[in-house]
């Protein structure tokens, strides 16, 4: 396949960036999207140009490091995958592909397509945990039976990989899906319920302070989320917060 790439290039956080066009040829449909970018970068290096910086690590869709807004969608046009699992067979010969960084005030660009997502960490610092010491001197793991239904839903919420696609996709750059996934995971488990009220208050407060937008329930995050985190989690967070606020 031969393709035209339109890629956001930006030297660092301070300088302005712009879209730059690249032509790339002989791309195999079996390549992953990032392998296609590897090919481009190798060509750029051989030509003495600066390669395109992009985040990636595990390349199997679980670490959440890769990002990219491809042809107007977070993680590209495929569903249920991260960019590293997106394959070139999703595109056609001759296509023009727009590649932009995840955009949000809370995710400033570091270089090219690399953004700083430490805002997500900060939200977790505010309450994304169960306050239990790691001594191992807790009760037996089977001491509290947990209904399978709750455990499964907690797991579904916990599969969030923190990639930021929800923020990137949301027209308001809202982090609700991310925050609600963590709030939900713990709210559904007896171990997490104890401090549920403080958790949701603190996490929401931090989320607001970091400059994420509000949720207008467009549902775009749920569609673009590579792990299919459900909007039900946002509803649950809304409930939890309401409960916490009137307490």
């Amino acid at each position: 396949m031969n393709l035209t790439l339109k890629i956001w290039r930006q030297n660092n956080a301070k300088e302005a960036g712009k879209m730059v066009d690249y032509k790339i040829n002989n791309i195999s449909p079996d390549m992953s999207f990032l392998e296609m970018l590897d090919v481009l970068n190798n060509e750029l290096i051989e030509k003495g140009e600066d390669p395109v910086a992009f985040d990636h690590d595990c390349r199997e869709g679980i670490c959440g490091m890769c990002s990219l807004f491809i042809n107007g969608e977070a993680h590209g046009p495929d569903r249920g995958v991260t960019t590293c699992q997106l394959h070139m067979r999703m595109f056609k010969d001759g296509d023009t592909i727009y590649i932009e960084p995840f955009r949000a005030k809370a995710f400033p660009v570091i270089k090219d397509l690399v953004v700083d997502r430490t805002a997500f960490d900060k939200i977790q610092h505010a309450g994304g945990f169960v306050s239990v010491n790691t001594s191992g001197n807790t009760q037996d793991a089977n001491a509290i039976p947990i209904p399978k239904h709750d455990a499964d839903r907690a797991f579904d919420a916990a599969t969030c990989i923190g990639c930021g696609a929800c923020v990137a996709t949301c027209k308001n750059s809202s982090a609700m899906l991310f925050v609600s996934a963590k709030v939900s995971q713990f709210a559904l488990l007896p171990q997490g319920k104890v401090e549920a009220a403080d958790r949701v208050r603190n996490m929401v407060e931090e989320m607001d302070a970091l400059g994420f937008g509000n949720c207008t329930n467009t549902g775009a995050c749920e569609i673009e989320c590579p792990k299919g985190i459900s909007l039900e989690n946002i509803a649950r967070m809304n409930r939890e917060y309401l409960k916490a606020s009137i307490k």
Partner: protein
Amino acid sequence: MAKSALLKSSLAKKYWMALTGLFLCLFLVGHLIGNLQLIFGDASKFNEYALFMTTNPAVKVLSYLTYISILFHAIDGIVLTIQNKKARPIGYVKNNAKANSSWSSRNMAILGTLLLVFIVTHMVNFWAKMHFSEMPLQTMEVNIAEGQTVKLYKTVQEQPIPATAVEMGQLEVRGTGFYQGDLKIADGYKDLHKITVEFFQHPQYGLIATVLYVLAMVVLGFHLSHGFASAFQSLGINHPKYNCLIKGIGKIFCYVIPALFAIIPLYIHFILK
């Protein structure tokens, strides 16, 4: 903490948006039932309804709640929109938003602004007249013999007053009251029906008014197609068992209610003689 959280936080803003929105949905139902008197009732029924709506103390409370809701909904919406715009200072060159969300869900602010403009115009056209300006009082023609009619004022006290009594100066009309000297003997009905019919049948502007009203209802439909169900989500009501019900009622609010509202001006303009 809790106090400020219920006003300032992003989630709280959504709660208020949802609560005021849902309240306005209830208002729409009430308003629609009244308005349908224009088609299914007659002038008397409609004017009685209009009087009831402007004088009943319970309704008064509700109406103030409605005004506050509209204001709050609008202001909250504006604040949210400004915050949301700030959350993404640099936009995308290419954004394929239609792949993941409905048009109306992404354009609630625009739809809302249009609705606000509509509400203001609508209130100027009808509500303000009803409340603040002199209005004609409702009369009726009664056959007393073949080919002979008399014009009577309909009154709240049910004893009609012949128009001639006013024309000949025996009675004086002040506001809606009929006075004999300083003694009020009866109250007439403001003829909102007549005003409405004349508005939509106006030889020059009637058609435009009708079209604009119908368009406004289309906007309302879009606004509600996202807003109704969204309000429940904001309040944390999202459960596989009940989502169907919410979606179903949402459909009614998105199609049926705006359509019924829209039929009224069409009926008046094109059908009512």
